[in-house]
């Protein structure tokens, strides 16, 4: 199959060998689980359980609010002991509303929705509703509600479901293991998703450094002409949805638009497996595979973990630390979040926990830019990082916006390549945060102005009506014969 090229990209040291040969190991549900109400892109979910109530495994804890939101379920059976603020798995260390469950140890299932018989013949809406009701979000890290993407066939002309098994982030191996060990489930989920989308073509993009995963998928899809496994070049960030789309289909998604614009919808391989579970067995998304790895982890592993388990439980299950970790990261080393501590819960988007030793974290002081152009040549979006950073440093955010800083995907390739160790991507994240805020403010002001103008118009027409009425009255009087 023809492969297309993307601009830029880098070759960081992958270090996937630390965990790639470790089979997925289930982590028994820990005694306490912490389920944040927000684990997805979109509106907060609303709790429907009260403190003190008993919940069964798979029971709905909080329901989605509107379309762009996700429902959360109990990962095990037990008692809701609190709904309170708990430190979020985020660099800020800020707290967020979280349902705390004390497990009863029985791990007893609730009554689950009936499996959908013959999903490939079912009404697509039935599948979409099931996926929404199962709380499935994009497990590759984007945490976008999967049902919303599955419904895109209604608004866009589509012809391809692209499964993303690239896993280009260094260290992470959870998708690799899912593909190797559960290729059948991934392929079945993909078929169900393709049916829901109304497309016939399924492409699966996998970085060429995962030959076992490619072989397993090909075996599972054997005989199905609609499914093609596409080995893609080993280069970060080929796994970014728009870039993977370009690589395997040659179609370049227009800026400011969704992938569906070019007829393609992308889903992560693990998301496909979750869809398989939801549709075939009625099982909601209550666990995920997490790669726990890094030079400071004694026994790097791929764990199947209940959502809401604390990071500390995962680290313990991997034999603890072999040395003092210099940096704790949620996600991969290129785009992950620094974690403030171990007492934060695993959420649906947590693909990896990295405990990096001092010699794995490159720490060098920032030096002046020497205009070497490395950042420009590695940028997968064709941006000019050094110019944008220079503008942002001088607080000229509008000028940076004109260089399309808003198109930055935050992949960090520029920072990785910079010989002066300038934290370029940090500038862009900052600028995009401020610009988004300014845009919100501008819209708000516009709305207020529109309302004020409408109000003024109303008042004016009211006045005019009164005046006319008065004039008419007067006229009546004058016309009245004395």
């Amino acid at each position, binding site marked *: 199959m023809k492969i297309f090229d993307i601009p830029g990209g880098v070759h960081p040291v992958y270090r996937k060998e630390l965990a790639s040969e470790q089979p997925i190991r289930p982590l028994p549900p820990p005694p306490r689980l912490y389920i944040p109400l927000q684990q997805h892109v979109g509106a907060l979910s609303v709790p429907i359980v009260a403190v003190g109530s008993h919940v069964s495994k798979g029971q709905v804890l909080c329901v989605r609010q509107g379309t762009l939101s996700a429902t959360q379920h109990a990962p095990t059976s037990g008692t809701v002991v609190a709904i309170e603020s708990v430190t979020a798995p985020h660099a800020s260390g800020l707290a967020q509303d979280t349902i705390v469950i004390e497990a009863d140890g029985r791990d007893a299932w609730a009554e689950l929705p009936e499996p959908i018989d013959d999903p490939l013949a079912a009404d697509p809406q039935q599948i979409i509703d099931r996926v929404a009701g199962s709380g499935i979000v994009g497990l590759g890290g984007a945490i976008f509600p999967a049902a919303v993407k599955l419904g895109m066939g209604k608004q866009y002309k589509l012809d391809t479901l692209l499964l993303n098994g690239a896993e280009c982030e260094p260290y992470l191996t959870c998708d690799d293991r899912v593909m190797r060990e559960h290729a059948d489930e991934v392929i079945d989920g993909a078929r169900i998703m393709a049916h829901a989308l109304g*497309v016939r073509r399924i492409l699966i993009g996998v970085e060429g450094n995962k030959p076992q995963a490619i072989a397993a998928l090909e075996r599972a899809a054997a005989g199905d002409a609609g499914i093609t496994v596409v080995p893609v070049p080993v280069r970060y960030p080929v796994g970014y949805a728009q870039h993977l789309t370009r690589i395997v289909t*040659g179609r370049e998604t227009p*800026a400011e638009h969704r992938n569906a614009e070019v007829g393609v919808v992308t889903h992560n391989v693990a998301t496909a497996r979750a869809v398989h579970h939801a549709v075939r067995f009625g099982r909601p998304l209550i666990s995920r595979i997490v790669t726990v790895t890094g030079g400071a982890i004694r026994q790097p592993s791929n764990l199947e973990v209940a959502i809401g388990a604390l990071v500390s439980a995962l680290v313990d299950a991997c034999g603890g630390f072999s040395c003092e970790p210099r940096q704790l990261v949620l996600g991969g080393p290129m785009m992950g979040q*620094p974690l403030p501590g171990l007492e934060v819960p695993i959420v649906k988007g947590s693909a990896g926990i990295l405990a990096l030793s001092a010699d*794995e974290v490159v720490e060098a002081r920032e030096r002046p830019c*020497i205009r070497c152009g490395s950042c420009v040549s590695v940028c997968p979006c064709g*941006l000019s990082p050094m110019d944008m950073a220079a503008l942002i440093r001088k607080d000229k955010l509008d000028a940076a916006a004109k260089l*399309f800083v808003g198109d930055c995907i935050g992949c960090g390739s520029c920072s*990785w390549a910079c010989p002066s160790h300038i934290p370029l991507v940090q500038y862009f994240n900052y600028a995009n945060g401020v610009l988004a805020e300014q845009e919100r403010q501008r819209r708000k002001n516009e709305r207020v102005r529109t309302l004020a103008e409408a109000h003024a118009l109303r008042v004016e027409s009211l006045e005019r009506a009164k005046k006319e009425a008065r004039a008419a009255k007067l006229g009546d009087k004058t016309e009245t014969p004395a």
Partner: protein
Amino acid sequence: MTNFDTAKSAPYAHAANSVGRTMGLVMLALVPATLFDFWLFGWPAICLFAITVGACVGIEALCLRLAGKEVGFHLVDGSALLTGWLLAMSLPPWAPWWTGFVGAVIAIGITKQAYGGLGQNLFNPAMVARVALLVSFPVVMTTWVAPHPLFSPGAPGLADGLAITLGAGVPDAMTSATPLGHVKTELSRGVSVLQSALHLPELSDRALGLRAGSLGETSALLILAGGLLLIALRVISWHIPLALIAGLVLPAALAHQIDPARHAGALFHLLSGATFLGAFFIATDYVTSPTTPAGKLVFGAGCGLLTWIIRSFAGYPEGMAFAVLLMNALTPIIDQYTRPRVFGRARSGQPLVFTGKVDEGGQP
């Protein structure tokens, strides 16, 4: 709860590169040519080199201190050392000590630090210094000597060499013209290039460097080898060197075809003057050259073409330094017009319009 550092944001991985490594590799690539030239021109050249490099580093330290910057941290980036090295290679090897010192003041003090230090200068520091010296002290800057290899009969010893550098100057009997200078002078006397070329050193000698010239002008082949090393190590890309050489030799070859009596050929231009030093080490300076491949091609070709024009029609025999400085001035505008196309956007900046066919419900 254990508290981990959250001050550093992603990425946590980094390429194995640094400013110091880059500067170090460029200097490494200069080592063979430099050592060969030390041997060729002996003690006066070594003394001038030491003084020039020392002055550059010293003035850099002084300026950093005046600017309130951390002297040691910035000094170890190696940029001042490299500038001094390149400046020394562009001076007549037996020039007096003060050319190196004044050059250092101009290169580091005025061209680099006055503009804000590393990365902020618009012009190549070593070339500004060379041009300023050439314009201000034309006699000193064009007094070349024929090679006097170290320890060969007639070559100055350490004491004599130091004396030459510190003020005694070049004994008249030892001066010699560079090939470019010779051809130009003869041409101005009405002697055709065909005639004057007969009196040049052998081509092989010129390629190896057994002729008069600055350190960087002689030993063309060793400079070329160093340049190719930099390309192999990906310190520089091939765009500027290739475009520069093409921009120089193509018009030279064409003009030579048309009027061989007036214009020297491509090979003469390739092996004379600072062609290789300019193409691989001067024009490729990150700070003062464009950043994209397209920009580099434009910049390199411009450097080459201007060098040929100056060599062929202007008053100076060598034009590399002038050409690079003129193109340096254009770097910002070249950068402006050669930005890469943004992914998902047309060159105009508008989002792409998808015109491909979506085969809805079709067979895979």
